[in-house]
């Protein structure tokens, strides 16, 4: 029988499936970061003056900010002057899906995201962001009949400026943190969603992010507004080619839920994690925040994080309305030399607000996996309730698993509960499954999927299957 070291080596050597590149003609901004870069991007996108001014304000804020130092890893040296902040496939504006570059269509097929509406997964509308720009959005007409707006951020700026102007930067201000400020200055595209009053969006909306070009970063911005009594489920997936240098992904996502609205946001993050020695990979420094502005509104984040060299994200919920509800479900898997520092922040401001945090970390190899979370109960948040559970599973004895929760309660009627455990995959569990004819690799996959089940169950069907497969592949053959 193979010993656990051999099997762990196997996982380490398992290659990243989506590491190929697509060969298409690109239009790129000159390398470097200064005001001209921002004017270049804004001009390329034919933006109104107010947006350019907003970007410049963000850039000014960015220049005054320091790199963070509180994280549980060594911040890599990032030379922001060495990357290009705009990379777009050369192609004029598209009237229909038929005009999308066939190379891109082929790439998407290869990634399992067919853009052809006949072939597409029923019930999922997709927006594809290729490097800096959105290249295709499916099922738009069908959604438009209901008044649902689902388009690229650039189009939203042109066609729905009043909505963008009203909400942009209201949840994640342009000076929130250094990465958010950078994003606000140089963001190139992203998705925009507006669900009108009383509409339950009939299909899953999905954005697929792909970094393809070399020496670029991806800085997309997503804005989702769910009006009174509306509902939407939004999915996000991502991959990147295998490259030896690190690439930066600094996205911003803002969610706004009005009265009785509900937004469910799911992510399956599979950016290129780097090779087994820690060379290359995406730095995934993302700011995601939602506000439950209205009473009885709800925002739910679900994330399955398997990729990126460094993941640094804390999808947060501000529970402003009374009776509002926030949820965070997360599975983060790290192996080789990957680093994940992820968790959530929940701010209880309104009365009777509730939140639930379920975090499952799985560490293998020499990786480091940290849960960092904040639960804050404000003085007005009478009867607020939070339940947090964060579990860590260790595979092998050279990885790290850490839990850093921050709990701040300023209301005596609030109830906050936090539980955390650390475990490894038990040899007796493996043996039991072996004895039933299941080999060790499959046994691990079963156990890990069982361990992460509470979170996987939160994903929409189409994604749950993909996520399960991803987990099994990522951890193929690992033994505790």
């Amino acid at each position, binding site marked *: 029988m193979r010993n656990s070291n051999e099997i762990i080596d196997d996982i380490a050597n398992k290659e990243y499936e989506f590491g190929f590149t697509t060969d298409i003609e690109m239009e790129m901004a000159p390398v470097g970061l200064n005001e001209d870069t921002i004017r270049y991007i804004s001009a390329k996108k034919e933006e109104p003056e107010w947006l350019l001014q907003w970007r410049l304000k963000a850039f000014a804020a960015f220049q005054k900010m320091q790199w963070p130092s*509180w994280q549980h890893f060594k911040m890599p040296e990032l030379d922001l002057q060495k990357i290009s902040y705009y990379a777009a496939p050369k192609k004029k504006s598209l009237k229909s899906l038929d005009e999308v570059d066939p190379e891109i269509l082929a790439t998407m097929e290869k990634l399992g995201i067919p853009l052809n509406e006949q072939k597409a997964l029923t019930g999922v509308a997709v927006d594809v962001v290729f490097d800096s720009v959105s290249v295709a959005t499916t099922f738009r007409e069908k959604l438009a009949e209901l008044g649902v707006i689902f388009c690229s951020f650039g189009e939203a700026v042109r066609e729905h400026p009043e909505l963008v102007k009203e909400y942009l930067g209201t949840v994640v201000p342009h000076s929130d943190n250094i990465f958010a400020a950078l994003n606000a200055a140089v963001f190139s595209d992203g998705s925009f969603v507006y669900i009108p009053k009383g509409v339950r969006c009939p299909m899953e909306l999905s954005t697929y992010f792909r970094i393809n070009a070399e020496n670029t970063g991806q800085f997309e911005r997503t804005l989702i507004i769910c009006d009174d009594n509306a509902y939407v489920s939004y999915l996000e997936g991502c991959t990147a080619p295998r490259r030896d240098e690190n690439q930066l992904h600094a996205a911003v996502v803002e969610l706004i839920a009005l009265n009785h609205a509900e937004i469910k946001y799911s992510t399956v993050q599979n950016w290129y994690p780097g090779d087994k020695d820690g060379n290359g990979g995406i730095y995934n420094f993302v700011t995601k925040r939602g506000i439950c502005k209205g009473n009885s509104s709800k925002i739910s984040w679900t994330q399955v994080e398997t990729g990126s060299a460094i993941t640094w994200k804390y999808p947060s919920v501000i529970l402003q309305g009374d009776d509002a509800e926030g949820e965070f479900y997360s599975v983060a898997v790290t192996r080789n030399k990957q680093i994940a520092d992820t968790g959530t922040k929940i701010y209880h401001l309104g009365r009777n607000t509730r939140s639930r945090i379920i975090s499952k970390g799985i560490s293998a190899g020499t990786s480091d996996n940290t849960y960092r979370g904040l639960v804050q109960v404000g003085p007005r948040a009478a009867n607020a309730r939070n339940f947090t559970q964060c579990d*860590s599973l*260790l*595979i*092998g*004895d*050279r*990885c*790290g*698993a*850490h*839990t*850093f*929760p*921050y*709990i*701040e*309660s*300023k*209301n*005596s*009627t*609030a*109830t*906050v*509960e*936090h*539980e*955390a*455990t*650390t*475990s*490894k995959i038990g040899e007796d569990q493996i043996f039991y499954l072996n004895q039933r004819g299941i080999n060790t690799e499959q046994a691990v996959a079963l156990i890990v999927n069982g361990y992460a089940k509470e979170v996987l169950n939160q994903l929409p069907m189409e994604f749950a299957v993909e996520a399960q497969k991803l987990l099994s592949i990522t951890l193929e053959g690992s033994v*505790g």
Partner: protein
Amino acid sequence: MTSDINKSFYDFISNGMPGPEQQTDVNNAILPARKAAFSRFRSLGLPTLKTEEWRYTNIQRYLKDAFTLAEEEQSTVTAEQLKGASIPKLDSYTAVLVNGRLQPALSQLPADGKITISKISDAAGNAQLQAWFDKHPHLQKQPFAALNAAFFADGLFIEAGVNASLDKPLHIIHVYTAAANAFIQPHHLVVLHKSATLEIIETAVGLNEAAIAFVNSVTEVVLEENAELWHYNVQSTIKNSRHIYHTSALQKADSRYHHFNFTLPAAELTRNNLSVALTGSNTETNLHGLFLATEQQHVDNHTFVDHQVAHCNSNELYKGVLLDNAKGVFTGKIMVHQDAQKTNAFQQNNNLLMSEKANINSQPQLEIYADDVKCSHGFTVGRFSEEALFYLRSRGIGEEAAKTLMVNAFAFDITDQVHIPALQEFLSDKIRRYVTGAINN
């Protein structure tokens, strides 16, 4: 240093405090250690709210008053004044310290050749003092511990020889007194040699309500192989006192450390830095804490259990009861190093908020680098159950009695672990009084 508070405190340090060189009254042997500590303090600087370890305790607001160094005042302290810190019915030896200085005339020390209890200043040539003074790894990054080591006036030195033990507990009574606002810095060292056992109870009393006593103390504990220490620290003094306590223990193989921390009214600031380094295998560590805070009290408990080697067990339970406008902080860290396989480490922090304005900030942390371990932490905060209160009242129990009953029930997990009946009774009585007092306010 930019801020005024920092400036005035630094002025105080540079002008008001005699420099390390002037502290020759204690002993020259420690001078190099003092100097090293002073340069450490200078590089660490005073913490601000941006310092992660101090994010919930704004220490600067407690430092802005003008302080002087405490003068020795043993002559004025009478046995009568010790009453506030005495435990009825307790059969023990006593060591009375005034502002950190041992007062043999007021004490009843054991006459056991194997156990040394003296002033640090009288233990100058002691090899253990030389070996351990200011050496605990966890003290190295704490600015106030560095400040203490650089300028401390005196402290208690306890050394228990191989197999030594006492027939009854040693009760250390700390008296803090000064005519004007004073900055008092005692430094104590407790060394238990192989298989020695000791029970130590600490209580404190403040004598002058009119002046502020800022006590910045350090207690270092060294447990050699198979040694066992029961260590009870009851922090209950007058309102006008501010305390930063550092207790750092180092445990060698097979040793057992049972630490109990009771923070009770009415010091306006209590910050506890309790840390245990497990450097030998098969150790046992039990940390029990109860903090009950009223009025404007600010109680901050920082604990750190550092599992460096395999097969060690640690268990931590801290409970907080916050009344009135009291603020509580709990930050507990468990660190499990790569070599510390087969570690069992548990930590639990439960809090009861008894009033609208009380609040609690908590950070239970796990930092784990070994896989074959069992670690968990838990945190809860809630208010006492209105329904339970109603149930008790409907059975004819008055609100005050009912609340006291419930607080005592909440605290029971901790008080029940106290194995000295007189101390247990003393604590229950105090809890009862403070809860009643707070309700009647």
